[in-house]
């Protein structure tokens, strides 16, 4: 392996790592706020990529009926949750959020899809379709389990992953899709050729990180999310409902997932079940960061990307094995550092 190849692999690694970083950040966010280990994060990625591909082809994506269905279920779940304070105004608010909003998005998608309005509009529609699913899933699947243990939430999370993957197959079929790059341009940089697409990916990743940082440090809502993560009871006593924090963090995760899908779709063929592996690599990064630290998770994600790209060059058949086994030394290290006995109460 000479220096040029190494540079090439590093570049590849950083670009892929950027995607894993986005996923790792949303996983840390969801876990710290809700204690849910969000296995279905990968499905948001696949849904994002395939929804865009389907709009690109001028057809109405299968995720649109899913959005409407999830919205309806979330409406029922929300009504049940709020039954003690179910006034006309509350009902109206819930109906707007759970029924009217998805209907509006669906109508826009239905109207725009055959027109092939161009990549930018299609990306916006894709984000509008996938993002609300996060909140709806939280209301339907996880909020009723708010008092369950992390383990039970994890099993439920795997259940949601199974269902969403199965639905992905129904909506998008077994064939994979690829979308055109965000930019065809490429720039020479020394021995390398940097594609416009990879610049877009790194740029958008940085933009998202900056946006998240601004959200958490400058807005009361962002601080409320951190507060819930830091001290759930304390947050409730300030009137910050765990369900609000949960819905918000799930929506952010779905948004980031969909955007990751949009970014990765031009690089690789995405199938209905590709998201799971991509999501798990985000997990490897998040676990290395202890599921708690954002900077550590982001740095680990870049590392995972680089390990993956070097592994795929050296032993392509075993690249997944090498990436997943990367967590073993980390787990060992954490295991040796952990307290010998403690009750989780």
């Amino acid at each position, binding site marked *: 392996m000479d220096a040029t190849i190494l540079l090439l692999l590093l570049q590849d690694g950083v670009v892929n790592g950027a995607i894993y970083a986005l996923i790792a950040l949303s996983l840390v966010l969801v876990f710290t706020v809700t204690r849910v280990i969000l296995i279905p994060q990968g499905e948001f990625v696949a849904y994002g990529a395939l929804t865009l591909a389907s709009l690109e082809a001028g057809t109405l994506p299968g995720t649109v009926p899913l959005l409407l269905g999830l919205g309806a279920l979330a409406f029922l779940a929300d009504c049940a949750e709020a039954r003690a304070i179910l006034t006309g105004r509350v009902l109206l608010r819930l109906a707007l959020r759970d029924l009217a909003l998805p209907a509006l998005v669906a109508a826009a998608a239905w109207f725009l899809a055959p027109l092939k309005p161009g990549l930018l509009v299609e990306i916006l529609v894709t984000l509008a379709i996938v993002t609300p699913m996060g909140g709806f899933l939280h209301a339907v699947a996880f909020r009723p389990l708010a008092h369950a243990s992390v383990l039970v939430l994890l099993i439920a999370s795997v259940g949601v992953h199974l269902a969403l993957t199965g639905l992905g197959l129904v909506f998008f079929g077994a064939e994979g899709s690829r979308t055109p790059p965000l930019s065809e341009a490429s720039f020479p940089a020394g021995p390398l050729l940097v594609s416009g697409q990879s610049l877009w990916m790194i740029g958008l990743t940085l933009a998202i990180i900056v946006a998240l940082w601004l959200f958490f440090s400058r807005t*009361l809502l962002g*601080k409320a999310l951190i507060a819930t993560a830091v001290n759930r009871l304390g947050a*409730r006593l300030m009137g910050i409902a765990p369900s609000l924090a949960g819905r918000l963090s799930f929506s952010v995760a779905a948004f980031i997932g969909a955007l990751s899908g949009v970014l990765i779709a031009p690089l690789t063929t995405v199938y209905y079940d590709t998201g799971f592996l991509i999501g798990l690599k985000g997990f490897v990064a998040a676990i290395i960061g202890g599921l708690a630290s954002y900077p550590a998770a982001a740095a680990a994600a870049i590392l995972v990307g680089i390990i993956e790209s070097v592994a795929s060059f050296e032993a392509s058949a075993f690249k997944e094995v090498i990436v997943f086994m990367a967590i073993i030394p980390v787990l060992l290290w954490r295991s040796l550092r952990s307290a010998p006995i403690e009750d989780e109460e």
Partner: protein
Amino acid sequence: MTRPMLEAENLVVAYGKVEAVRGVSLTVAPGRLVTVLGANGAGKTTLLNALMGVLPAKGALRFEGDDLMRLPVEARVARGLSLIPERRELFATMSVEDNLKLGAFRFRAKGGGGDLGEMYRLFPRLAERRRQHAGTLSGGERQMLAMARALMGRPRLLMLDEPSLGLAPLIVAEVMRTVARLRDEGVAILLVEQNARAALRIADHGYVLDGGTVVLEGDSRTLQGDARVVETYLGSLSVDEDGPPGRAASGR
């Protein structure tokens, strides 16, 4: 007598099969300072948590005439109830100022929450430490922050769970002065305390809890002189006269 602001009737709170609060009734009138006294394990904290909705309870609970029983914690906060829990529950890894801002979360849409400047005037120490993490504060400062954070939510009824816990006597006195001043400004207060003397000095009315029930109730001045208050805290030492404790009853 004005209409009570908070009215609890026959409140029962159970952990599994164990009833920690066994049929407590109490009222707080607007603008009054009511204290609930009792030894450790008497059920005071459980009672407050039930009033706030942190723990499920049976019985009746009304706030300004509205039924509270089925409302979750957040909805009770929205109506103007506020609890400063025994463990303070601050946001340890966030700055003092962020903690305070979050105190006004319930006003985020409509405005009208507490004023940061006012809090810093009330608790000058917090102004000095506004950028510090809440977790780095001393015990007394934590209690100040917990109070200021609660006040940012402009509570109509403020419930305090052992604000003197773990604080040196000088700081206890300061905390109590602050509580009394809040009452004077019109906030109704329910104060749970182990420090009976300090609490009774500033309270208008008191309840004494033992074994999860109210064993004494009355005007705070009456309670101050009641020997039974001392007994609930330090035991009756009934075997004192029979010789060395314990051995006498061991059946030899």
